[in-house]
């Protein structure tokens, strides 16, 4: 169990919980973390407050709850008012946030940037979800909870993990992913700057840049790397996971390698 104060589970606020990575993280770590699973349409396929269990031959015995159910929160992250709502719900439910994972992403390849005029709104939406929302949600958590708890944040190793992509570091020609790649490159820089800006309040920030999962990297490995970020002491790191394995390609204060 990932322990926080007095042996309690660490509290993880996870966006994109309905996606492949988010659901996998919930499935693998719900017994170790108290997870606030933020999803838009797809509910993560794990027990939650919306799911209990019934014996069809004895339904009168009442539903059985799962002690490690995630706390599912449905929200459209592109709506500004949802950001503080999510943080309020997480704090109301668990009283704290130890780990913030930005796994929600618009992964669509929107074609050439030269067709911007034809897809302006779509591109803006992708930019908003992939870049602005992680910034806004991190800022909200910092403002509503972390800001005045620097010593506690350090002792509990609180941190933010940003799910970027190798697409933000390498040009893959002919795929039409220029805008998506730009959002991931921006997210990587935002995550590194966030390490600098959250340092005074004792909160770490790191970036994970996997290749396509599950095609190149197993989803479980990406989920496990998130958990390792949480267990570590590092901040301002970019970790790439691809067919060559896993490696730190950037540390705070260093130029990219």
């Amino acid at each position, binding site marked *: 169990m990932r322990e926080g104060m007095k042996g309690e589970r660490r509290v993880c606020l996870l966006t994109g919980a309905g996606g492949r990575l988010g659901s996998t993280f919930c499935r693998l770590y719900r017994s170790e973390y108290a997870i606030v699973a933020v999803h838009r349409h*797809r509910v993560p396929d794990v027990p939650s407050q*919306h*799911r209990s*269990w*019934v*014996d*069809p*031959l004895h339904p009168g015995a009442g539903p059985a709850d799962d002690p490690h159910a995630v706390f599912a929160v449905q929200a459209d992250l592109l709506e500004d008012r949802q950001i503080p709502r999510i943080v309020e719900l997480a704090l109301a439910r668990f009283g704290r946030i130890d780990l913030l994972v930005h796994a929600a992403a618009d992964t669509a390849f929107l074609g050439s940037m030269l067709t911007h005029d034809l897809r302006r709104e779509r591109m803006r939406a992708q930019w908003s979800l992939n870049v602005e929302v992680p910034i806004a949600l991190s800022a909200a958590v910092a403002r509503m909870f972390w800001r005045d708890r620097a010593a506690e944040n350090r002792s509990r190793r609180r941190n933010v993990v940003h799910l970027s992509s190798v697409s933000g570091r390498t040009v893959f020609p002919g795929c039409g992913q220029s805008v998506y790649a730009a959002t991931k490159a921006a997210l990587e820089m935002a995550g590194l700057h966030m390490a600098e800006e959250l340092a005074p309040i004792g909160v770490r920030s790191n970036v994970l840049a996997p290749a396509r999962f599950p095609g190149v990297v197993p989803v479980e490995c990406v989920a496990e790397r998130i958990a390792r970020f949480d267990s570590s002491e590092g901040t301002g790191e970019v970790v790439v996971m691809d067919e060559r394995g896993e490696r730190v390609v950037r540390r705070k204060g260093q130029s990219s390698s």
Partner: protein
Amino acid sequence: MELSQILSNRRWALETRPFRHFTARDVLRTDVLAQLTAGFREVLSRGLAQRWDGRRFCRSASGYDAFVLPFSRSMPRAFDVLLSRSWHDMLASVTGVSATGDVDGGLHHHLPGSADGWRHTDLSPGWFAGEAGDGEVSLSDGRKCDYATGRAVKRGVLPKERVRGAAMILYLANGPWTPGDGGETALYLRPDAPFDQPDALVPPVDNSMLLFECTPHSYHAFRRNPKKPRNSLILWIHRTREDAVSRFGERSIVPWRRGQRGEPGTSKERAAGHA
């Protein structure tokens, strides 16, 4: 056979979003599922008909892109376990429906590339001839009375009106399923939500089941299956109209559209518009 000997999984998930429903995987024992699957495929091997002949899948009503074979006692015996009073009573007990013993439904077959269905609640009336005997269910029988209208087809029949109380979809004879194969049952919180943005999707994994009480909010629909056929068994238990009206109000009960369910042996197609 006792239900405890039929069921493989007695841990059914009660979900509350977007509306109260139950899902379960590995519902039936392997041998029971194998018999049902063999029975389904046997019926499928009889071919597909454009008009109802009582023994083959026939094209459903306009708007529902599927072939349907309504329940009858002439179906393979393997299906008797799901048409038993004990199965009926179990569904009633799980969903909390005061059920009458009346059962409607059938086998559904969607060819690859079948179109999306439409959102609906299933809170609709159904007419039956006769009463269920002790320990038995009363199957809807279009040769005696029209399920949708209550028109007596056979002399001497006194149709009685019921309202659908709960719906069960058992997915079978589909083979392996992966995301992208389609054929899911989509569930919606609101009737005006975008069709392509359901609040939940129940995949047609063999030996899995979706069960829900038919209420004014139980919006669901069939999602197109671009790649593979999609097969299922669909069953409705019923409540009295008085019970439905007292719970939901008269206006919540959705009448059948003209032609949505036809009469057997006529030019109209018999349908069971469902997802």
